[in-house]
């Protein structure tokens, strides 16, 4: 077990988060360098996630590191019944850092226990995806110049969406007020509502994605309402279009408002929003590279990169 692994956003203190945001801003200014020259990094994707894998591999390559790994577990010994422990111990012989995605919850925590090599969790089932949270935080920080005094509105599937849960936990370090906009079937789970109450976090629960909610928001975080979440398809048909965002809905919104979405989107943000300067989801994905560069350097214990680049 090692301490520099990044498994859960809940392991990071407020100071850790601020320091990573500061580093991400530095990497945005200096995206290409040789900081990771001589470092070999594994990307082990036990379930496919092209977007996340490309972002991590871009982050490594632009810092001069090398990548090995797999994106299809069907072609590995996992399909022959090898345990996760054995796969991790084998790969740890070769590399300086393991970045892993797994379909089982808690897999990255376990991996970090069976090796001395640092592990970055690139998503473990419905549990944690800390680099998504860091890029969300960085996008909010970059567009608002602060993480304090903001109103953040989360829309769509708040029950199953791990991104909104992790973002809520990370933002709880800061002075943020929340609007939770969803149908009752997909509202924020009780444990997070209790967490907000216990920590004096202000929040408002709404079933209605209306002008009042939109116009007071600094950030609107959209998520996709997925058909497979509903046991009653009639119910899905009733709510599927209630949480879609159209450009006209933004007419009286705040000038600093930005629309975020973890992507991929389907129709919850209509195409006519894309050209609105308040649409930020594509830049948000780009910010992922910088946030991941910051996390990779932290996991590898590289702290002097500012000196290396000068």
């Amino acid at each position, binding site marked *: 077990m090692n301490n520099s692994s990044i498994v859960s956003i809940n392991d990071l203190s407020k100071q850790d988060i601020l320091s990573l945001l500061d580093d991400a801003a530095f990497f945005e200014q200096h995206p290409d360098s040789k900081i990771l020259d001589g470092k070999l990094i594994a990307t082990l994707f036990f379930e496919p996630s092209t977007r996340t894998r490309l972002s991590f591999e871009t982050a490594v390559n632009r810092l001069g590191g090398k990548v090995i790994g797999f994106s299809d577990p069907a072609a590995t010994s996992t399909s022959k019944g090898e345990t996760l*422990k054995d796969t991790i111990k084998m790969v740890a012989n070769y590399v300086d850092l393991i970045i892993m995605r797994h379909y*089982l*919850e*808690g897999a990255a*925590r*376990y991996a970090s226990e069976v090796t001395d090599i640092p592990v970055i969790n690139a998503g473990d089932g419905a549990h944690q995806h800390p680099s998504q949270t860091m890029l969300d935080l960085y996008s909010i920080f970059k567009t608002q110049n602060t993480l304090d005094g903001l109103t953040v509105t989360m829309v769509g599937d708040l029950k199953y969406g791990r991104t909104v849960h992790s973002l809520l936990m990370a933002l709880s370090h800061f002075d943020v007020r929340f609007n939770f906009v969803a149908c009752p079937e997909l509202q924020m789970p009780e444990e997070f509502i209790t967490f907000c109450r216990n920590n004096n976090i202000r929040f408002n629960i709404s079933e209605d994605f209306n002008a009042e909610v939109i116009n007071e928001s600094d950030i609107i975080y959209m998520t996709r309402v997925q058909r497979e979440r509903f046991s009653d398809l009639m119910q899905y048909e009733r709510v599927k279009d209630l949480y879609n965002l159209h450009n006209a809905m933004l007419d009286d919104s705040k000038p600093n408002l930005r629309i975020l979405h973890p992507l991929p989107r389907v129709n919850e943000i209509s195409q006519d929003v894309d050209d609105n300067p308040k649409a930020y989801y594509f830049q948000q994905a780009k910010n992922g590279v910088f946030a991941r560069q910051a996390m990779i350097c932290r996991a590898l214990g590289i702290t002097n990169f500012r000196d290396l680049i000068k």
Partner: protein
Amino acid sequence: MNLHNSNMNEKKELAVAALRNGTVIDHIPADQLFKCVALLGIESLDKSVTIGNNLQSRRLGKKGIIKVEDTFFPDDVLSRIAIIAPSAVINIIRDYEVISKQPVRLPDEVIGIVECNNPKCITRNEPMKSRFRVINRNPVTLSCYYCEHELSAGQIK
């Protein structure tokens, strides 16, 4: 589970109550008694064992009690009891005297005893020990160290 009754001349009641050396686990909720019996591995003991259940209790309404002669359980075994019966009290008897009377104490972590009820948890899919943080003691609530799912007392198997 044989009734302790070595001397047939004595009254049964006395035989049940008197324990020269051993352990008495008292204040077990009646509906948890047989789970405690299983957790302690009492079925395989060859010592005298007395089990009472649905006894009147001011605290619990109905309680269970387990008396085991000449047996002193290690702490890690007793801490298992705390998971399902946090109200239980352990009495250590030597020479008919109660020399120690302590409530069961759940450790801060429970390792390798309870199964996570999340089928997608890594602990259910790898040959490894489960591990839980104790986030509430009475009623017991556990949080899986790996997937962070919470288990309430009724869900603990």
